[in-house]
Structure formats: structure tokens, C-alpha cells
């Protein structure tokens, strides 16, 4: 268990990067949400690792917060996905450029 913190951090980094790739490359909103989940997970992992490194509970507290936030985010996000699908019959973000005037 010598280098495990660093190893964990490395894994978290990789996981974050993968999530980012997912967000960037996928067009489907559902897949993007999934990727965001992965990124949040990676962040949480980094927190826990750091917390364990300094033997503080704060890391885990932060993870709890992230967890709660992720739950809220997913619920709202998915509700939005539902509505979008009902209204536009598509999941493609490129078709949803309503912000553009």
C-alpha cells in the first residue's frame, strides 16, 4: 500500500479525462449525463484519497456532498431529458441550439 494514494489519484485523473471525452464526443444527452457522472465520481475519488492521505474526515464529507449533489443533478437532468424528448423528439444537443438567436 505504499504508493496507493498516488495510484488512486492517477486513476481518478484518468477517470476524469475519460468522462470529459465522453461529454465532448457524445451527442446524446443521456450519454453526456452519464459521462458527467463519471467525472463527478472521479472528483469524489480524489477527495477521498486526499482525505485518507492526511487522515482527515473532510475528504469523505466532501464526497458525501458530491454524492448528494450528483443525485440532485441526475434527477433534475433526467427530468429535463424527458421533457426535451417529449418536446423535440430528439436527444441530440446539436439540434437544441435555441440559445442562438
Amino acid at each position, binding site marked *: *500500500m505504499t*504508493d496507493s*494514494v*498516488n495510484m*488512486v*489519484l*492517477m*486513476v481518478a*485523473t484518468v*477517470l476524469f*479525462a*475519460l468522462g*470529459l*471525452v*465522453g461529454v*465532448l*464526443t*457524445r*451527442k*446524446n444527452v*443521456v*450519454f453526456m*449525463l*452519464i*459521462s458527467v*457522472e*463519471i467525472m463527478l*465520481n472521479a472528483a469524489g475519488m480524489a477527495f*477521498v484519497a486526499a*482525505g*485518507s*492521505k492526511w*487522515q*482527515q*474526515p473532510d*475528504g*469523505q*464529507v466532501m*464526497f*458525501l*456532498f458530491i*454524492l*448528494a*449533489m*450528483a*443525485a*440532485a*443533478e*441526475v*434527477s*433534475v437532468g*433526467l*427530468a*429535463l*431529458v*424527458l*421533457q426535451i424528448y*417529449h*418536446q423535440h423528439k430528439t436527444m441530440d444537443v446539436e439540434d437544441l441550439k*435555441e440559445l442562438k438567436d
Partner: protein
Amino acid sequence: MVITRYHPVHALLYLAVSFLSVGMIFLSLGAPFVAALEIIVYAGAIIVLFIFVVMMLNLGNETAQQEKEWLKPKVWLVPSALVLVLLAEMLLLLFSGNQQVMQVSQVDPRKVALSLYGEYIIAVELIGFLLMAGIVGAAHIGKHRKPSLHRFLQNGDAEKERASALQQETIPNEQTVLHD
């Protein structure tokens, strides 16, 4: 694997696997409480939520087909390269620090709970609000409003409907003409 699947259900299954392994890592870091939460909330609740949605929207092979079209190298190459650079930089940062060996020790739930309701009490309350708002918001947004569309789209739709109605009217006419 999660991000490369075309089929949403497959992706979700891989996501579950990912969550489980993250949970294992937590356990190995000496955070059993968090590991448990990870598995319960993420692998349990959130995945289920996703699956519900996928089912409700009936995303199946059709979507997979669509995804396959979208996921061309042209599309993902540039972002992936960027992310790769980012990854490299982050790893560089990670390893540029001093590599001292740390003893991983257990942080038990009691400590977490004490800190949670001690110094972070305000944050907890805020998170409570957030969750509350999330629930209400999701319930509100998720309500199945039928035709309340954006006004721009409404017009477009109305026109489309009118047009299709016209078509439907004209076609029988033609047919009758042909019949005659």
C-alpha cells in the same frame, strides 16, 4: 468502455461496473462508509434512475444505430486529443510532487459523522436545501405537460399541422379525380 458504447443499456452496465470498482478502491483506502454509500447510491439509485429513463424513452437499438453514425473519428478525435493533453499535464503535476510514502489509515464513520455535523453543519443544511430543490424541480419539470410548447415552436408546429391537414385533404381529391 462506458463512453464508447452505442447502446445506452450497455453503457449503463459498464457504468455500474465502474462504480463498483471505485467502491472497492474506497474500501482499500480505508473508507468503508463511503464505499458503502458509493455502491448504494451510485450503483443503486442513480443507475436505476438512468435505466428508468432509458426505458421510458424507449431507447433501444434505434438509438444505438444513431449513436454509431454520430461517433465518427472526425467527431471525437480533436476533443480526445485535447483531453489527452490535459491528462498528461495533470499526471505530470501529480508526479512532480514529492513521492513520500504515506500510511493509509482507516477513517471511521464516527469521525466523518462528527465532522459532518460539527464544522460542516451549514453545508449539510445547504445540501439539504439543494436536494429539496432538486426533488421539487425534477417533479415540476418532469410533469407531463402536453402541448405547452415554446411560442416559436408552437407556431411552427401549428403551421406544420395545417400543412399536413391540407395534404390529407388534397390527396383524396386526387384519388377521386383519378378514379373518375
